[in-house]
């Protein structure tokens, strides 16, 4: 029976527990709620949650551990000669899994009866047709031993599922029973329930830590696998990126880092002047009406999804730049410097447009935080407004602005969609902004969405790239925070 039934039963038991707990508490107080320590509802919640929470935790753990245990059991039974040449234990295991899944589906849709499924042996052509009927595609014929393993898998699976039901429901009943036993008018139900809710709140807050741990561990694990297949010194210090699906690829990080940094540099060169000057004008010179109109309009640029910018780069900015810098005789400048629409300049300019509101709003906050007394002092000495900004306000706001620029750089380095569509796929070290160069994020997408085998170095390199990218952006963010905190002037 499906899992949803079990969860519904658990909730139904919890509901019964609530009613029973509340009634029992009121009965122990002879029907007068004023004699109870807590509100009657808390006794009900105590009874309900004492059964529900342990049962749900047990269920989650069981669902997590059960496949792993079964797989390791079956995997241990698969003899080495069953694994064909060039394949791996994992692939045989996934064949077994698919066959078992197909048999399950066949029994579910009543194509064959359960007994027939258990008794199937050897006749693999029928099996392939059967699988095809339920929508599972099997490539090679199924060996009889693989079929036997699949049938054993199904047996273990259903036995384990049965045990899970029994264990989980017993745990729920024990929990409810214990709680009901403790329910009487002196029992401090509210405190117990609130402690439980606090535990749930702490669990929710620790999901943030769990996420970071998950990110780091998952990438670390696969990166370690990658470095057993490919030398780490070549990855970090080599100079060519040339993946080859036949193996023996050159996978180095430096050309990708160069592309990323070059594009980010151009993006910042576009975004920082425009964003900073816009922020200065809006906070120092603009009137209320202009601020009310211009600021939200600039914020709109921040809310546009990056896929839109990517398409804009590919289909509008790219061809426009080709018209200017390429196309020989027909172009604007009459030169032939740019061949395709994808280039560092295309991606950099569009990324700069995307970062303008980011830099502008951060700088705006920082400039506004500089106290008016500094400006007034400067005006009192006879400076013009621009001299005040240049010589008093900006130096005072400098740590914050540097922090904002570093945050924007971190955003530019991690940006994916704009470079996937606007930059190219060729990894090279070149200073020419009109050539197409690829970046770290582009290669992560291409290596993980390609057709290569998952355990090959070509696919695993994406995890190594991801870990390096994570460390890089984390480092930039920490640096930004450190600079702001150390050099920030604490006014009043």
């Amino acid at each position: 029976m499906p899992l949803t039934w079990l969860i519904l039963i658990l909730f139904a038991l919890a509901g019964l527990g609530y009613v029973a707990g509340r009634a029992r508490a009121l009965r122990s107080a002879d029907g007068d709620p004023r004699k109870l320590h807590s509100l009657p509802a808390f006794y009900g919640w105590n009874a309900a949650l004492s059964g529900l929470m342990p049962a749900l935790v047990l269920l989650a753990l069981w669902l997590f551990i059960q496949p792993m245990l079964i797989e390791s059991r079956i995997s241990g039974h698969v003899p080495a000669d069953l694994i064909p040449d060039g394949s791996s234990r994992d692939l045989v295991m996934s064949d077994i899994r698919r066959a078992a899944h197909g048999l399950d589906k066949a029994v579910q849709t009543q194509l064959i009866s359960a007994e027939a499924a258990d008794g199937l042996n050897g006749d693999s052509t029928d099996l392939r047709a059967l699988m095809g009927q339920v929508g599972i595609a099997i490539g090679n014929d199924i060996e009889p031993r693989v079929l036997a393993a699949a049938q054993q898998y199904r047996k273990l699976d259903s036995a384990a599922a049965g045990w899970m039901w029994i264990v989980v429901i017993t745990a729920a009943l024990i929990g409810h029973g214990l709680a009901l036993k403790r329910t009487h008018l002196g029992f401090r139900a509210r405190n117990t329930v609130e402690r439980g809710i606090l535990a749930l709140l702490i669990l929710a807050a620790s999901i943030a830590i769990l996420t970071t741990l998950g990110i780091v561990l998952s990438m670390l694990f696969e990166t370690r696998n990658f470095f057993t297949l490919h030398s780490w010194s070549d990855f970090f210090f080599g100079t060519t990126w040339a993946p080859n699906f036949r193996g023996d690829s050159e996978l180095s990080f430096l050309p990708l880092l160069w592309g990323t940094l070059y594009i980010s540099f151009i993006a910042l060169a576009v975004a920082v002047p425009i964003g900073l000057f816009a922020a200065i004008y809006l906070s120092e010179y603009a009137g209320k009406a202009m601020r009310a109109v211009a600021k939200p309009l600039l914020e709109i640029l921040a809310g546009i999804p990056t896929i839109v910018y990517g398409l804009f780069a590919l289909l509008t900015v790219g061809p426009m730049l080709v018209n200017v810098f390429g196309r020989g005789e027909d172009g604007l400048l009459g030169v032939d410097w740019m061949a395709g629409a994808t280039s560092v300049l295309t991606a950099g300019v569009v990324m700069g447009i995307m970062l303008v509101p980011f830099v502008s709003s951060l700088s705006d906050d920082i400039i506004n935080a500089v106290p008016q007394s500094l400006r007034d002092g400067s005006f009192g000495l006879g400076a013009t407004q621009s001299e005040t900004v240049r010589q008093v306000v900006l130096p005072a706001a400098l740590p914050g602005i540097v922090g904002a620029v570093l945050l924007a750089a971190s955003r530019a380095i991690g940006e994916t969609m704009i470079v996937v569509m606007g930059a190219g796929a060729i990894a090279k070290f070149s200073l020419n902004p009109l050539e197409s160069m690829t970046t770290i994020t582009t290669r992560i997408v291409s290596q993980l969405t390609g057709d290569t085998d998952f355990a090959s170095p070509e696919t695993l390199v994406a995890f190594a790239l991801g870990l390096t990218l994570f460390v890089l952006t984390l480092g930039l963010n920490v640096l930004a925070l450190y600079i702001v905190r150390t050099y920030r002037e604490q006014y009043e």
Partner: protein
Amino acid sequence: MTDTTQSTPRAGSLFARDARTDRRNAAEKRFRFYGLTAIAIGLVMLITLVTTILVNGVGAFQQSFVTLEVELLEAKLDKAGTRDLEKIKKVSTFGYVPLINAAFDKLAAEAKLENQLSGKNMGAILSKDAAAQLRDYVLANPEKIGQTITFTFLANSRIDGYLKGRVSRESIANDKKISTEQLDLADELRDLGVLKKTFNPDFILGGDASDQRPEAAGIGVSMLGSLFMMLVVLALALPIGVAASIYLEEFAPRNWLTDVIEVNIANLAAVPSIVFGILGLAVFINVLHLPMSAPLVGGMVLTLMTLPTIIISTRAALKAVPPSIRDAALGVGASKMQSVFHHVLPLAAPGILTGTIIGLAQALGETAPLLLIGMVGFVASNAPDSLAAGLMDPNSAMPAQIYEWAKRADPAFYERAWGGIIILLVFLIAMNTVAVILRRRFERRW
């Protein structure tokens, strides 16, 4: 007594302008000019972006259709005359193409068309979907075999491009899929009123089509995928985010563990989105063996991305509730938890809601993590039929679908990508407007 300084007094009046003052004033004017230019550049870029999107995308909402009277010949479809569905199913889609060609021949004869193309070449101006559409109709209404029914078929993408101005006689010089005679035929049919460009609801409601049929591609199924993902994000991120914020804001002691949690949340807000995609691939798909391309997995990845946003905005909303509310609740005998859940949380609810809607809007536009969990390629073809299927069957999301169309490198698909962007932006504008309206309506000044 102070020493007077030896500097000579300035010659002339303070009110007369000298060269240095002029320079300083000029510098001031230039500075203002730079600031205004920067704002102007920003606004020009915004306007360029919006105009490009509108100009390029509006065409996707209209499609060229051909109205044709097709005789459902019994001799070809149901030779035995028994109307047995199993036998009729045996006629493949290819078997219906001669019917279409015959219909064109009939039209050419009746309307006295000038062009000399054979029925087969005339039939080629229709989408490859046309025969399938005919077959579906016959299988649904077998009793109509033998009659002549009027159908509206999609024209193929080259003809559609011709009607929209994308394709011209010069541009198809090397194109094998269309000939100038077919373009002439299109002109004649357009003058007759048989070939028309009308609003195409299938773009908004239909599913994706293979890369041979850009005219039949729609974003509707991906919209459903996005919807399911947003439901998952709402169901997961809102409770977890609010619970975490309540803990951090109200209950957490000032120790190192709390600091670690807060630093983690701030870091997660700045992690590139592709790293979350890697996390989703490595943990949800490889370890937990959840199905690839499932909106459930996409929703879980987007939840992790939206969590920092919701936590930050919820904490701000909780901070905005004045301490007097909490003290008053404690004063009438509530416990700390009761004061938070019964008094503070309802008052902070509008701010939490606004933050959640903005977080959802950000999640709606995310593409990179979805690409890594498998939402690429031709996945959004059939609409899901139940909630469970909607969550677990492979589907795409609107931004991923747009990226997929852009990758196909066909001008007809580019037009559809721009159209998809218009639809995506309509959703985003709607969500952000709702958030702003809610904020204005429920804002309280304490």
